[in-house]
C-alpha cells in the first residue's frame, strides 16, 4: 500500500439543516474538501469560526453526517462502513476534543473514562489487565496512576486534557483527530499539553489531524497545514512554507492579524478587514471575494479550485495569484 492511501478525503461535503425562527435553512459547513493525511504525519487545519474545520474532523469518523464525497482509511470506505466495522474504525481513529470540562462524564472515575473504549469493545482479558492498562496509559500522559480513582472535578484543565488524550490513545490508535485540544488552556499549561502531544506522536508513531484556530499552535506541531475559509481549503502546503510566505489573500490577512509579541509592530489605528459573510448566504463565486483586495470579475462568478501555484507543491484556491 502506498503512503498516499493512508487517509484520504475526497470532495467531502457536510451540511446541517437548521431551523432559525421557524425557517428551515441549510448550512453547508464543509463544501468539497479534498485532503490526504500520510502515515506518521501531522496535518494542521487552521481557520476561523465557522470555516468548517471541526466538521471536517467529525465527518471523518461520522460524528457529523457527510452527504457527499469519500473518506478512505487504508482502503476502507469510512462513509459506507456498517456499524460493526465503524466501531472498529473508531478504535483506530480517535478524537481528542476541545473542552476537557464538557468531554468527560463528571460521574465516572478517570479510570473508567480512560478505559471506556476497551470496555465497550471487550478488549481487556482480565480485571488486572484493565487496571494495568489504565495505569500505563495515565503514566504515558504524565499523570500518576492514582488519578484513576479520582473524578473530573478534582482535576485542573490541563490534567483533564491529559485524560482526554489518555482515553484517545488507550486502544493504540493509528490516527488522532485533535479538535482544538489546547484552546481552553492557559498558555503555561497549553505548552505542557503541546509538548506531550509532540512526544506521544514520536513514541506511538501517530498520525494526526490537528485542528486549531491558532496559527502559532499549528506552526508548533504540524508538518503541513490546510487553511480553510467558508467550508473550503484555500491554501495547502508544508507548514513552514505557508507561514513564511502565505499566498492566498485570506491566509495573508490571517497571518497579519495574529497578534505578535513584538512591541515594534504596534497597531496604530483603525484597520478595515471586513467580516465573513453569513453562512446561510454564501456569495456566488469565491467566498472571500467581498473582503478580498485582489478580487476581480471572475471571482464573482466562478469559485476557484485548489490548484498548484509555483514549483514547490503549494496549492492555492485563488484566481488572482
Amino acid at each position, binding site marked *: 500500500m502506498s503512503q498516499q492511501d493512508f487517509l484520504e478525503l475526497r470532495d467531502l461535503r457536510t451540511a446541517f439543516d437548521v431551523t432559525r425562527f421557524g425557517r428551515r435553512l441549510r448550512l453547508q459547513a464543509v463544501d468539497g474538501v479534498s485532503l490526504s493525511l500520510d502515515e506518521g504525519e501531522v496535518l494542521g487545519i487552521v481557520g*476561523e*469560526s465557522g470555516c468548517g474545520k471541526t466538521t471536517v474532523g467529525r465527518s471523518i469518523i461520522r460524528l457529523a453526517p457527510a452527504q457527499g464525497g469519500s473518506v478512505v482509511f487504508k482502503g476502507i470506505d469510512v462513509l459506507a462502513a456498517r456499524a460493526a466495522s465503524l466501531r472498529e474504525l473508531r478504535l483506530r481513529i480517535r478524537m481528542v476534543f476541545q473542552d476537557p470540562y464538557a468531554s468527560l462524564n463528571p460521574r465516572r472515575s478517570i479510570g473508567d473514562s480512560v478505559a471506556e473504549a476497551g470496555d465497550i469493545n471487550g478488549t481487556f482479558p482480565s480485571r488486572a489487565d484493565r487496571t494495568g492498562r489504565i495505569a500505563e496509559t495515565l503514566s504515558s500522559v504524565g499523570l500518576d496512576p492514582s488519578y484513576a480513582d479520582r473524578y473530573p472535578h478534582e482535576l*485542573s484543565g*490541563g490534567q483533564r486534557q491529559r485524560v482526554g488524550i489518555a482515553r484517545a490513545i488507550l486502544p493504540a490508535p493509528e490516527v488522532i483527530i485533535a479538535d482544538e485540544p489546547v484552546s481552553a488552556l*492557559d*498558555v*503555561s*499549561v*497549553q*505548552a*505542557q499539553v*503541546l*509538548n506531550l502531544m*509532540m512526544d506521544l506522536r514520536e513514541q506511538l508513531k501517530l498520525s494526526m489531524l490537528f485542528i486549531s*484556530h*491558532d*496559527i*502559532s*499552535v*499549528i*506552526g*508548533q506541531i504540524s508538518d503541513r497545514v490546510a487553511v480553510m475559509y467558508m467550508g473550503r481549503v484555500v491554501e495547502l502546503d508544508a*507548514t*513552514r512554507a505557508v*507561514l*513564511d510566505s502565505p499566498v492566498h489573500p485570506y491566509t495573508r*490577512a*490571517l*497571518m*497579519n*492579524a*495574529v*497578534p*505578535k*509579541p*513584538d*512591541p*515594534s*509592530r*504596534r*497597531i*496604530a*489605528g*483603525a*484597520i*478595515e*478587514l471586513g*467580516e*465573513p459573510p453569513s453562512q446561510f448566504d454564501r456569495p456566488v463565486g469565491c467566498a472571500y471575494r467581498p473582503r478580498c483586495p485582489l478580487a476581480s470579475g471572475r471571482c464573482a462568478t466562478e469559485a476557484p479550485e485548489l490548484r498548484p501555484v509555483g514549483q514547490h507543491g503549494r496549492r492555492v484556491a485563488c484566481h488572482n495569484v
Partner: protein
Amino acid sequence: MLAVRDLTICVGPAAKAVDIVSAVTFSIDKGEVLGLVGESGSGKSLTSLAIMGLLPTPGPRVRAGRIELDGSDVTALQPWQRVEAGAGRLAMIFQEPMTSLNPVLRIGDQIEEAVRVHDGTSGRLARERVRELLDMVRIPDAAVQLAAFPHQLSGGMRQRVMIAIALACRPQVLIADEPTTALDVTIQVQILGLLRELCDRLDMAMLFITHDLGVIAQLVDRVAVMYGGRVVEAADVGELFGAPSHHYTRALMDCMPAPSRQRRLRPIPGQAPRPGTITAGCVFAPRCVAARDVCREALPPQIRISERHEALCAFPLGSGRSP
C-alpha cells in the same frame, strides 16, 4: 486619570477572609493604555470589577487600598454615588457582548437608552448622538444596524455596539476586560485598532485586560503583569518585552508557541496557585527556576529596575542579583 493604590480584595466571612488580590498598585494617564496581563485566576478581572464598583454582593470585597478617579477617592462609592459626587467617568466593556445586550431590544434603542441616561436628551437630539456614536465605532449601514436585534449581528459588530454604548457617557477611562478573546483574529485586530484610535482621538485612558501577550505587545503603552493576585512586574511595553525582569514574565514569554519556530516548548512547571492560596513568600516561588529559600520565606521586595520599571522579585533577571 485613574490611580489604584494597594488595592486588596478578600473573600469569605470576616473571621477567615482570604485575600485574592493583594496590594495592586498602578496608575493610568490621559490617553494612555495600560495592559493588565495574567492567566486565569490571577485576579485581573476582579481588579477591574473593583475599579468599576461592580464586585458582586455578597462576594469578594475591597479590604484595603484606594481607587482614585481624576483625583477623587471613589473606593467606597457605589456607581450612582460616583456620578452624584462628580467623579470622573468610567465605562466598561466585556468579553461576551451578547450577555451584556438585551436580546429583545433593537440595537438602536439600546444605544439611545444610554444616551438618554447620560445626556438627558431625547428625540432628535438623542438620535443624532446615536448616529455620531455609530460613526465613532465605524459601524457601516447605520440604518440597517440600528433596527437589528443583537442576535442578527456578528460578534465583531456586537462588540462595536458595546463600545458605542460605553462611549455614550464620554468616559475618561474605558475598562476593557478581554473584549476580543471570543473573536476571530481577523475581527480582533479590527476591534483593537478601533480601541487604539478612540483612545488617541478622545484622549481617553484605557485599562485593557487580557491573557494574550501578543495583544499586549501590539496595543498597549504600559504593562502590569499579574500572578497569584499580585502585580509582579510593571513596565513600559518596549522595556517589558526587551528586558523582562520577573521570572514569571520571562517564563510566560518562553512558553508561547510562535509560528516562526518549531521546537520543544518550555512550559512553566506546575500549576498556577488557586486564588486565595496563602504563602509566606513569593507567590511564584513554587514554579520559579531561580527560587531560593529566602523566596519561599518572605515576600520579595519591590525592586525598581529603571525609572518606569518595577519587579516584585528578590533576584530579578539581568540585575546581577540572579542566583
